[in-house]
């Protein structure tokens, strides 16, 4: 199922006798709506783009190379920097891949702590995603409202792990800190206050006619194309593929939790348009809230971390794990040579494949749509560049 038949026709510029010129626009690296630092070279015919070629690498910090120098434990804080908007998932991915290499089992309570932290982080990451998306479309107020709620999650995570952005909460074999006292009440109080606000966002902006018109039928990605380009997470689900690593390749304690997987249904346009990607995120926040409520009820007592030697030397071999991060299926591939340093680490992130599809998606769209496309894919530049 190649991509035959999915080529996008772009009309030729100009009529004979009337000389026109294609405009090359440089969007970025400094531009208000390139999330992070990245650049697009746009070839445009007036407002209509013929192509938008992403140029990445401005935020390349050689994180994979660093992992070969700092050892398994020492790399954990670096994983925070892979995707600083949703650092918990990177923590979790690194923890899981090392545990798979070393054959370590995480205690049950540790897994629950991980899920609680991760789902809180998923909500906060999705809040940024939808907030920035709305801002890019031109409405400013929902952006601040989203950030206000995110601050509350940051406060919760700060209490849990001492940091607001680069959490470094998880360790190989579990988590670094147990839940603080009265944490469940605080989380539940937040959720009680947060869930009605999701409906308020819907009233404020989601079903606003202008907003819907800006997103419906824009940059449609059919399921075949999405899979071929390896789109993952909310972007893939926006294209109507009901797939979630948490359910289909279960890890941690997700099999014990009940949650739905929202998919794009094309309710205002075509399946796989920008609106579907947006609404999937809105609904996933609700599901995360549901998961959190269950976790708070089910979390068992016990230790939160397994015994792992300080000089962690997993046996030689390689392992690949997939984590459902806020930006979708995040792949961690680690090769160990039996020493205390990873031999090779490869992080395949959701934004990476999302960024690679932008060129395909952007053809024939308007410049204003490109902004919607970037933010609807929830591209985080540092995650692309690593």
């Amino acid at each position, binding site marked *: 199922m190649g991509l035959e038949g999915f080529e996008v026709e772009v009309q030729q510029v100009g009529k004979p006798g009337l000389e026109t010129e294609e405009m090359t626009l440089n969007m970025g690296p400094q531009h208000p709506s390139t999330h992070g630092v990245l650049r697009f070279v746009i070839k445009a015919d007036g407002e209509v783009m013929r192509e938008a070629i992403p140029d990445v690498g401005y935020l390349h910090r050689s994180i994979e190379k660093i992992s070969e120098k700092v050892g398994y434990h020492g790399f954990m804080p670096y994983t925070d920097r892979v995707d600083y908007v949703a650092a918990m998932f990177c923590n979790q991915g690194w923890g899981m891949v090392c545990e798979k290499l070393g054959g370590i089992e995480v205690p049950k309570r540790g897994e629950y702590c991980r899920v609680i932290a991760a789902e809180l982080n998923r909500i906060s990451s999705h809040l940024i995603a939808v907030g920035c998306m709305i801002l890019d479309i*031109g409405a400013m107020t929902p952006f601040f409202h989203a950030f206000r709620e995110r601050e509350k999650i940051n406060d919760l995570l700060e209490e849990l792990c001492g940091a607001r952005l680069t959490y470094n909460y998880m360790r190989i074999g579990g988590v670094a800190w147990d839940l603080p006292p009265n944490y469940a009440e605080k989380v539940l109080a937040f959720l009680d206050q947060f869930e009605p606000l999701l409906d308020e966002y819907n009233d404020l902006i989601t079903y606003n006619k202008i907003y819907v018109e800006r997103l419906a039928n824009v940059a449609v990605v059919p399921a075949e194309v999405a899979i071929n380009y390896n789109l993952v997470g909310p972007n893939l689900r926006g294209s109507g593929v009901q797939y979630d690593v948490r359910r289909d390749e279960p890890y941690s304690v997700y099999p014990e939790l009940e949650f739905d997987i929202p998919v794009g249904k094309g309710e205002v346009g075509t399946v796989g348009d920008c609106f579907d990607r947006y609404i999937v995120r809105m609904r996933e926040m609700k599901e995360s809230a549901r998961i959190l409520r269950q976790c708070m009820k089910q979390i068992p007592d016990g230790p939160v971390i397994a015994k792992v030697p300080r000089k962690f030397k997993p046996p030689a071999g390689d392992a690949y794990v997939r984590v459902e991060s806020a930006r979708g299926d995040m792949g961690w591939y680690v090769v160990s040579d039996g020493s205390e340093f990873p031999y090779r680490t490869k992080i395949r992130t959701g934004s990476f494949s999302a960024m690679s599809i932008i060129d395909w998606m952007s053809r024939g769209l308007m410049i204003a749509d490109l902004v919607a496309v970037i933010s609807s894919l929830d591209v985080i530049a540092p995650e692309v560049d690593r």
Partner: protein
Amino acid sequence: MQGFLDSLIAQGYFPGIPRNLVYAGGMLVFTVIVVVVFVFLVAGVTTFVERRVWARMQSRIGPNRVGPQGMLQWLADAIKLFLKEDLVPAQADARLFRLAPYIVVLGFLTAFIVIPFGSRLIIADLNVGIVFITAVTSLVVVGILMAGWSSNNKWSLIGGIRAAAQIVSYEIPTGLSIMPIVLLTGTLSMQGIISQQGWAPHTWFVFNNPFTFAAFFIFFTSALAEGNRTPFDLPEADTELVAGFVTEYTGVRYLMFFLAEWGNLYIIGAVVTTLFLGGWQIPPVTSGPVLRAVLEFLTFFVKSYFWVLVAMWIRATLPRVRVDQLMSVCWKYLVPFAFANILGTAVWVVLWPAGNVIVQYLMVLAGLALAWYFFRRVAFHLRRARVRERGELYLSPLA
């Protein structure tokens, strides 16, 4: 104005000076007062009010450090911009680049000539008043296009072209929505239009008949588009075009563009008030000319500033339309309805030349019903977020 100068001449204040010269001089002085004291003040304060209103809607506080409650923030901003380096990009067309902001400011300042602040407070009650306003505010587009072109920046250029397309298109529904009022009054003069309305809401033209009611909304919408306000702020769409036509501007010239934008907002409010909302008309409470003038001025100012606030409120709520949608809103929705309004009003005038009082009362009721529905929704949102239970109710406008 003229009467006042006549009385001064009669008292022998300007011996040996030709009467016309006195008029011209008086006009000039008055204009300068209006411009300096009123326009700059209004535009400046509007920036402050906008930021505070926005902030509260976004559950922030807003500027509150400079002066009491931050009320002098706008002055500090203006001084800062005055002191900034005035950059002209090396590759820019320097002459046009320097000229552009003046043309924009000229366009909006000229409009103040015919704004009727009171029954006698008007610089010149031109007999083509309302057409004059639509004409001179179109000057703004020339300035914006100039700015966009001369900056020699592709983002500016796109912004400039967008502005040109937008303003020229939206002139049409704006102009067409004025026509129903002109049909009702038979005059283009601003004072003439106001004098045919009364202080009571049912005598306002917005409630005159269903067609003027619709024309009011069309006029306000397209006026927002002409003033480059959200949801039609495409020319300077900050998330798409960086800052559109003002991308390359700094300092005073930047300030001038924004002076024009906020000043324009007030003009929109003033024109809406004049055409649809009874202008400066006040109930007959006093016969003292000075007190009356003050009350008239306040009435007019409050009414027109209310629409400035509404524009801010809209800006805080709505996202931006895309350029093709901008055009389709104009040509497919606003223009046909504006034409229908003209036809409808024409028929109405033939049927009830003096207006139909019952319909006027009904329209007022319809307006109240709309407001009632609206406030029910506000209450619903407050209830759903359990604002009262959470102790988050905070009525004070102060920070």
